[in-house]
């Protein structure tokens, strides 16, 4: 629903800031879906009357006008609008006025001087209407600021009215809700029933055949009305709500719909026929449409109705599709002097079905599709009568015709204040409860030990249970007031928790068995690893009361115990072993105690289970390296360098460490034969290698803490793969070659992979043949063969230049 905040301001004092209004609306359950601000116009945009016109020579659309803007002399303005005519009061922008990015200057059009611009609504930012220059009501004085005539500045709000709140479908409804949430008085229009002339020759036969679909039908007769254009305030109100003004009668019915939320319709009394020739009085019959009944709607569409449609008919044919749209035949025009004003209430499902079936959606059907209360019909009629008399004159004939069968007592609901606290979570005092609900016209009629009894106004068809009242209170007091009690407090290091589980799972997937060993160890074991007593002495934390000498210190490495586990299992005839432990090590670091979570793995024998079809490789350098690389890559660990991991227990050459800024994240290596022997494992007899792998779990958690996976749009162009083979010095590491190639075009070379390496007869000493697969991908455009060839040429050129090698 579209509303103007300025017009809303007629019914309640609004907060000074638009932002606050929007917030209040949204947080009381009326979501503001869009805001269109209409800025204030410069003071040099004023009303002006066109006093004479003549066509501009050599132009088929330009008119030369003399315009009275209230100054001493009329001004000459050239205008191209089709509705530019003598007598019209329009908006004039004087020279120097800035409208948007455009400044009005005195100019010449087809040789005719023009000293200003007559403007359309679009040019002034009021609406999208650019069909012609604006047409103010004829009685509008000249020289008045257009800001005044259009109530500018303004903000047009698009509201989402939830289906349970038909009472919010007009300005007054919104204002009433705001009055409750803002605790401000509602400035409701005073509506009185006006008595009609008793002596009147108009009469009507009203028949409601289907009271189930037409909950109430009221009609009022008026004669002597003058159909003409509406006063400016009325025009402005309709334009703000997105409607074109038509004439005063139709405009009043639309305005009252916007104001009070219930649509109305005016029929041309003269066009309504009686039920039979004998009857004198014209008839209004609310009935089911006849199958195949033809109906010409106001929008010009011809509809074929069926029995599911409800129509307002005269004695003969349908005059309106109930609640959806009026008919052409009985519409109001300048010659209409006698009218029937309908204010009725229809069943929502019927209106929705007709609107959907005939694909006609109107401001009226939008409202009737939600079940309105039939009680409003009378008041709404009175309001329209008052405004019609004001704008069209004439007089009211007779009393209100009213077909209304059911007059139920207003509903009474009991509300227990303590239920509010139980359900919503905080206490609301009975005083506050009363204030909020009475602002919505729910009268407190009784207070007893069971609770507070409220009488519900008819318009609030949605309030039928205590729970509905509790919701109203929670909504109006604001959900912000509901206290929140968090029990999840951020104590847990969720990242470290997940990190540990991921790594544990990674090793289980790789067929490792997890071991758990005591936190105590034997200092002699560190000597067995090859560490000197002096090396470890300061780092060891000694127990005062160990159970035995081989459990006399806290462990500073998981490796010795795992090697013992290995020996234990080897002694039981197991040959293929992959063991890992995740656990703490405990070090004395210059008097400070450091507890660090690490992972150590030991492995020997087959890397994969033996299979009859394919022979399994033994655990070796490439297997262990791949295990670490795979893990580090999956976790997205930022590695800044790799280097030799030289340790007394690791064989030289067959080891490597991955570092981040000097700190070791991961390492691996082959266990020395001597070290194995120190742990009572004879590799000579075993004829297997033992490999060791270590991870710093705490450090990995720290380095991956801020890593996030961000989805990247899939490339729209296919990738191209090209192979490249060359012979290069063995002294140049693969990583260097790869980086150098990638650097040739980092945005195009998405992958470099080695798929073959050859050292042998045909290759000279100190050289190796390397075969690489390059994946090339351009995210912006298709990679043509020429660009691919060019790219490969520059890669080759770079390789031969950097390492003086000959390309094949």
């Amino acid at each position, binding site marked *: 629903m579209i509303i103007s905040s300025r017009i809303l301001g007629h019914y309640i004092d609004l907060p000074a800031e638009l932002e606050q209004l929007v917030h209040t609306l949204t947080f009381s359950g009326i979501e503001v879906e869009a805001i269109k601000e209409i800025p204030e116009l410069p003071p040099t945009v004023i009303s002006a009357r066109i006093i004479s016109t003549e066509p501009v020579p050599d132009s088929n659309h330009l008119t030369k006008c003399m315009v009275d803007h209230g100054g001493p002399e009329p001004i000459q303005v050239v205008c191209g609008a089709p509705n530019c005519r003598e007598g019209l009061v329009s908006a004039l922008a004087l020279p120097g006025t800035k409208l948007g990015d455009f400044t009005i200057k005195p100019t010449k059009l087809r040789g005719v001087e023009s000293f200003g611009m007559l403007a359309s609504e679009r040019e002034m930012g009021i609406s999208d209407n650019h069909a012609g220059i604006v047409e103010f009501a004829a009685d509008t004085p000249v020289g008045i600021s257009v800001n005044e005539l259009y109530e500018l500045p303004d903000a047009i709000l698009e509201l989402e009215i939830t289906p349970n709140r038909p009472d919010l479908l007009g300005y007054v409804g919104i204002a009433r809700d705001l009055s409750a949430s803002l605790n401000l008085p509602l400035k409701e229009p005073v509506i009185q029933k006006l008595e009609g002339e008793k002596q009147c020759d108009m009469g009507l036969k009203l028949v409601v055949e289907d009271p189930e679909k037409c909950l109430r039908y009221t009609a009022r007769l008026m004669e002597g009305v003058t159909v003409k254009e509406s006063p400016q305030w009325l025009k402005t109100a309709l334009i703000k709500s997105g409607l074109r003004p038509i004439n005063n009668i139709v405009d009043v019915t639309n305005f009252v719909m916007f104001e009070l939320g219930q649509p109305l319709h005016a029929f041309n009394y003269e066009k309504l026929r009686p039920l039979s020739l004998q009857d004198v009085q014209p008839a209004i019959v609310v009935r089911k449409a006849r199958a195949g009944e033809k109906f010409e709607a106001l929008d010009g569409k011809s509809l074929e109705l069926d029995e599911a449609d409800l129509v307002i008919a005269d004695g003969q044919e349908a005059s309106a599709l109930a609640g959806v749209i009026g008919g052409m035949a009985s519409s109001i025009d300048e010659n209409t002097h006698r009218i029937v004003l309908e204010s009725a209430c229809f069943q929502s499902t019927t209106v929705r079905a007709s609107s959907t079936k005939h694909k006609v959606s109107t401001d009226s059907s939008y409202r009737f599709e939600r079940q309105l209360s039939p009680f409003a019909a009378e008041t709404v009629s009175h309001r329209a009568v008052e405004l019609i008399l004001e704008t069209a004159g004439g007089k009211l004939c007779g009393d209100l015709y009213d077909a209304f069968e059911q007059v139920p007592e207003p509903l009474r609901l009991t509300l227990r204040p303590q239920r509010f606290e139980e359900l919503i979570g905080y206490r609301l005092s009975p005083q506050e409860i009363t204030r909020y609900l009475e602002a919505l016209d729910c009268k407190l009629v009784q207070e007893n030990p069971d609770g507070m009894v409220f009488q519900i106004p008819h318009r609030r068809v949605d309030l039928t249970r205590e729970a509905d009242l509790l919701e109203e209170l929670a909504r109006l007091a604001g959900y912000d007031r509901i206290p929140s009690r968090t029990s*999840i407090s951020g*104590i847990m290091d969720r990242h470290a928790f997940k990190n540990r589980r991921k790594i*544990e799972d990674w090793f289980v997937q*790789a067929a490792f*068995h*997890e071991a758990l060993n005591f936190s105590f160890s034997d200092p002699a074991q560190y000597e067995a690893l090859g560490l000197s007593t002096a090396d470890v002495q300061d780092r060891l934390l*000694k127990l005062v009361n160990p159970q035995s000498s081989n459990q006399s210190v806290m462990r500073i490495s998981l490796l010795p115990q795992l090697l013992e586990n290995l020996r234990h299992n080897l002694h039981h005839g197991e040959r293929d072993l*992959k063991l890992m432990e995740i656990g703490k090590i405990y070090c004395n670091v210059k008097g400070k*105690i450091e507890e660090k979570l690490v992972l150590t793995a030991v492995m020997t024998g087959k890397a994969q289970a033996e299979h009859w079809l394919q022979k399994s490789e033994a655990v070796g350098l490439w297997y262990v390296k791949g295990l670490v690389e795979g893990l580090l890559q999956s976790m997205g660990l930022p590695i800044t360098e790799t280097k030799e991991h030289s340790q007394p227990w690791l064989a030289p050459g067959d080891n490597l460490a991955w570092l981040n800024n000097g700190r070791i994240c991961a390492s691996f290596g082959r266990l020395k034969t001597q070290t194995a022997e120190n742990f009572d494992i004879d590799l000579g007899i075993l004829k297997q290698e033992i490999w060791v792998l270590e991870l710093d779990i705490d450090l990995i958690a720290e380095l991956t803490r801020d890593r996030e996976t961000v989805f990247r749009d899939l490339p729209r162009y296919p990738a191209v793969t090209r192979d490249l083979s060359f012979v290069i010095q063995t002294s140049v590491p693969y990583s260097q070659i790869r980086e150098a190639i990638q650097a040739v075009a980092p945005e195009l070379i998405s992958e470099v992979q080695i798929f073959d390496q050859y050292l042998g007869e045909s290759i000279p000493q100190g050289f190796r043949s390397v075969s690489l697969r390059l994946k090339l991908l351009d995210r912006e455009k298709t990679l043509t063969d020429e660009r691919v060839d060019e790219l490969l040429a520059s890669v080759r050129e770079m390789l031969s230049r950097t390492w003086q090698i000959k390309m094949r």
Partner: protein
Amino acid sequence: MQDQLREAARQAQTAIAACQTNNDILNARAQFLGKKSLVNSLYSKLKDLPDAEKPAFGQLINDLRSELEKLLAQREKELKEQQRLQQDASKAQDLSLPGIMPGRGSLHPLTVVRREIEDIFMAMGFEIAEGPDIEDEFHNFDALNTPQDHPSRNLADTFYLENGLLLRTQTSTVQVRTMESFAPPIRIISPGRCYRNDKPDPSHSPVFHQVEALAVDKHLSMADLKDTLQNFARLMFGAGMKSRIRPHFFPFTEPSAEMDISCVSCGGHGCRICKNSGWLELGGAGMVDPAVLKTLGIDPEIWSGFALGMGIERIAMLKYNIPDMRILFENDVRALRQFSGESL
């Protein structure tokens, strides 16, 4: 001419029917419909015919042409179908031979149980908190209301380091540390290693693992403790599991209780494992002693809390029917392998 036409048709039909590969089809098409083909040469002979016969004969050649096209297409389709059948033909393998299985690793049974406990408590809204194994006397004893002369402080019960620190005897230390740093409401569990100077035997180990739960909030009562225990017992051991608490004494809880669950072995009927009582002791519990809360700056008039603790080894032994705690630290792969199914 008619004869030539008929002869060409006969030759082509035979050749097409004999095609066995896609290549044969290509060759046949070139031979019979290509530039130098028989059919094409017939076109060149058209000019020699009398004008009256030209249209009829031309039509005949055209008909032959499309007939051959059709035959070629049909033969091509047949060949494709044959190829598909061949590709999908049974390879006649011995399907009783083993497939290539990915290796099977395992988490340690204590890890399996720890994770299970963590998951159950996290589902109940608890967070996981951890703390150091090496502690001071304040966090391990003083803050927990343990009298200075309490026997648990002895060297015979607690391991001490040369620097005066000790190895925590329970993970209640983490509760203390959490309450020091965070204001209530608090709901945590603290899994971790604990140390007591017990000689290893079937039911003792100087190094063991514990999980403790702590909840501090407004309006927490022993009913919440019982609920938490009951929910845990059901989720850990099965829907039919019963639980109960019995009065007991701990310095840091008031009232204190011991928690029992129905015997996992006999289901409560009584057996050797539960010494015919139908119940197994799970651990200790109670309402956090107001003195403990006060020591940690939490007003016991506003806040109340419950705590419960249990041994992971004991739960693992009950759950998997492991007879001796020492097996859990032997790391014998013949034992570890049995937990592959628990680790997936």
